[in-house]
C-alpha cells in the first residue's frame, strides 16, 4: 500500500468512459510523471487526485484516507497550474499565503512560512509585487511557492513548464529536480513532454486513450517499452520501427530486413527466445543511438551487428549527426558522433547495437518478451 493510492479509478462523461481502470500506488517521496499526448486522460487523472473532478469509479486514497468526495482543500494537497493561476488582484505574498489564510492559520505563522519559502525560492524581493509585474519565470516560482507554503502531503503539477520559453524551461526543470531532491516531497507531475518525464521522474506512467500504457522507471520505459505506442512516444528522435521477419541462422534468431538496394540483411537478436517466432513477421525497434559507425559503437555491448546500407540524407546538429537510410521501405535514423565521416549517397558500414533492439508483435503491437 502506497502513500498515494489510485485504485481502479475510472472516469466517464455520460456514457463515454475517458479513463479506464487506472491502478497506481505512489510511494512517499516518489516523483511520478504522467505523460502522454493531449486527450490521453492525464490531466483528468490529476484533477481527480486534486478533487477538482469527481471520480466515477474506484477510489483514491492519500495516506490511507479515501478522499473520494472530499473537498480539494481538505485533501492536504497543493497544485501548480499550467497558467500558474496567480490571483491578479493580490500581491505575491498574499497569493502565497491565501491558502493558509483560508485554513485559519494565524498571521505570524503565515508570515514565517512565507519567509522561509520565499528564501528557498529566492523570491523574497518580489513579495510586494502583483503577478502582472512578474516575468514568466518569476510567476512560475511564485506558483511553486504557493504550493510549498502549504506543506502538503502531495504536490500536483499540471504542465507547469509549458508556458516558458525553451531555455527557461530547462532551467526550471533543474530547479524542480533540485527541490524534489532536497525536500523529498511526493509529487505527481503531468506533462506531454517526454524529455521532462525522463529527466524529472522516479517513475513514469505513459498514458494514451485513457489507458496507462506502461508504468515504470525511466530506464524501464526507455529500454523495454511495453508496446509500440510507448516505444515511439518516448525518445527523440523516435525509435525506428522496421518490419522484419524472424529467421534462424546458426541456431540463433535473426531479424531479416531489406536494405536500400532490396538485398536481405540478417541482424542477430540478443534474445534467444525469439526463436519461437521463426518465419513470422515482427516489428523491429531500434533507437537511433543504437545505430552508429563502427568506431562509435557501444564497447560494452556484446552484440554489435554490421549493416551495410546506402545513406539518404545527413543532418549535422552540432553535437550529433543524424543519418537517414531506408530499411525495409522505412526511413531509419541513426545518431552518430558529429565527426563521423559519412556523406549522402554513400554506401556506409553501420554498426547496430542489437542488445538494445526490441521486437513487437504486429498484431497486438505489444513488445515480445523473450
Amino acid at each position, binding site marked *: 500500500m502506497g502513500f498515494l493510492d489510485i485504485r481502479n479509478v475510472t472516469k466517464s462523461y455520460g456514457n463515454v468512459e475517458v479513463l479506464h481502470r487506472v491502478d497506481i500506488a505512489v510511494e512517499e517521496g516518489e516523483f511520478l510523471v504522467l505523460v502522454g499526448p493531449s486527450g490521453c486522460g492525464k490531466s483528468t487523472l490529476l484533477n481527480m487526485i486534486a478533487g477538482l473532478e469527481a471520480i466515477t469509479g474506484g*477510489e483514491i*486514497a492519500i495516506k490511507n*484516507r*479515501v*478522499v*473520494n*468526495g*472530499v*473537498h480539494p482543500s*481538505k485533501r492536504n494537497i497543493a497544485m501548480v497550474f499550467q497558467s500558474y493561476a496567480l490571483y491578479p488582484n493580490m500581491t505575491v505574498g498574499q497569493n502565497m499565503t491565501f491558502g493558509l489564510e483560508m485554513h485559519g492559520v494565524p498571521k505570524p505563522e503565515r508570515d514565517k512560512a512565507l519567509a522561509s519559502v520565499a528564501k528557498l525560492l529566492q523570491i523574497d524581493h518580489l513579495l510586494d509585487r502583483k503577478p502582472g509585474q512578474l516575468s514568466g519565470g518569476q510567476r512560475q516560482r511564485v506558483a511553486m511557492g504557493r504550493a510549498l507554503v502549504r506543506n502538503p502531503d502531495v504536490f500536483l503539477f499540471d504542465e507547469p513548464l509549458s508556458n516558458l520559453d525553451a531555455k527557461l524551461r530547462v532551467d526550471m526543470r533543474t530547479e524542480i529536480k533540485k527541490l524534489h531532491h532536497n525536500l523529498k516531497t511526493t509529487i505527481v507531475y503531468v506533462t506531454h513532454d517526454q524529455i521532462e518525464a525522463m529527466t524529472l521522474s522516479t517513475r513514469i506512467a505513459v498514458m494514451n486513450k485513457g489507458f496507462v500504457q506502461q508504468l515504470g522507471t525511466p530506464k524501464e520505459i526507455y529500454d523495454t517499452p511495453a508496446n509500440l505506442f510507448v516505444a515511439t512516444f518516448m525518445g527523440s528522435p523516435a525509435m525506428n520501427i522496421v518490419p522484419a521477419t524472424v529467421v534462424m541462422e546458426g541456431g540463433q534468431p535473426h531479424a531479416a530486413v531489406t536494405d536500400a538496394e532490396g538485398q536481405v540483411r540478417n541482424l542477430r537478436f540478443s534474445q534467444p527466445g525469439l526463436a519461437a517466432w521463426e518465419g513470422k513477421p515482427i516489428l523491429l525497434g531500434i533507437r537511433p543511438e543504437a545505430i552508429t559507425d563502427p568506431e562509435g559503437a557501444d564497447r560494452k555491448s556484446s552484440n554489435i551487428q554490421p549493416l551495410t546500407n546506402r545513406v539518404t540524407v545527413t543532418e549535422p546538429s552540432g553535437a550529433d549527426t543524424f543519418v537517414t537510410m531506408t530499411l525495409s521501405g522505412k526511413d531509419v535514423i541513426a545518431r552518430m558522433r558529429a565527426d563521423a565521416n559519412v556523406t549522402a549517397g554513400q554506401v556506409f558500414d553501420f554498426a547496430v547495437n542489437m542488445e538494445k533492439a526490441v521486437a513487437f508483435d504486429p498484431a497486438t503491437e505489444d513488445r515480445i518478451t523473450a
Partner: protein
Amino acid sequence: MATTEADFRTTLQDWLPKLVLAPSFAVTLLFVYGFILFTVVLSFTGSKMLPKYDWVGFENYQKLFALPAWNTAIVNIAIFATLYIVICTLIGLMLAIFLDQKIRGEGVLRPIYLYPMALSFIVTGTAWKWFLDPGIGLEKIMHLWGWESFSFTWIKDGEMALYTIVIAAVWQTSGFVMAMFLAGLRGIDNEILKAAQIDGASNWQLYRRIVIPLLRPAFLSAFVILSHLAIKSYDLVIALTGGGPGRATEMPATFMYSYTFTRNQMGIGASSAVIMLMTIAAIMVPYLYAELKEKKA
C-alpha cells in the same frame, strides 16, 4: 482501513452555485415565459377590461386582422422598419468607412455621432416634434432665411408623418450602427488590405470586394438589433406623433397599448402582442441559437 468522508460542507458547495442561480431562473421562467403563456392564453379569450377565461378560439386573431387600425399598423411597421434599417445601415456604414481613413478629429466626431443613443426616445421625440413643426420649426426657419416657397409639413400630414418617425429614429441609432461597423473595420487584418492593393484593387473595389464582405457579422448584428428596436418602438411614436395625425402613424406597439388599456379590448390587445413576439422571435431565436452554439464549440 480507509474511511470515506464526503462531508456536509462539500455537498453544500456542490449545490450552492445552482441555489444562487435558481432565483433568477425562476423569476425568468415566471415573469417572462409564464407571462408569455398567460398572454397567449388571454389572446384566446374574450377578455375586455379584465382577464376572463372564456375560450373563444381564434376569434381575436380574426378580428385583429379585420381591423383597419391593425392593418395600418402592419403596413406602417413594414415601411418604418425597412426604411429605418436600410438608412441606418447605409449611414452607419458610410460614416464608419469615412472615419476609418485616419481622420483627424475622430475622437471628437465619434462621441458626437453616438450621443443620441444615450437619450430617451421621449427626449428625442420632443426635440424633433417641435423642430419639424411647420409653425415654429424647420419650415418657418427656412422662410425667415428667405426661402419663401419652402414647405415641410410632413409631421402634420397623414401620408408623410411616418417618415418623420424614420428621421428621428435614424438620428437616434445610426451613430450606434456606425460604432458597430467601425469596430468591425478595425478588426480586419490590415495585411489582407495590403495584399488586395498589391493585387491591384482600387479603393472602391477594395471595399466592395474585400472589406464589406468581411463585415458580414456586423451587418447581421446591426440587422438583428435594429429590427428588434423597430418592432418595440413605442416611446418615439408616442412622443413624436402620438400615433397621429388621426391614426396615420399607428404601430403594433401603440395599437397593443391602446386596445388593451384604453379601449378595454384585452383579448385583441393580447393577440396583437403575441403577433409581435412571434415576429421578434423569428429573428432573434435563430440568431441567439447560432451565437450560443458557436460559443460552445
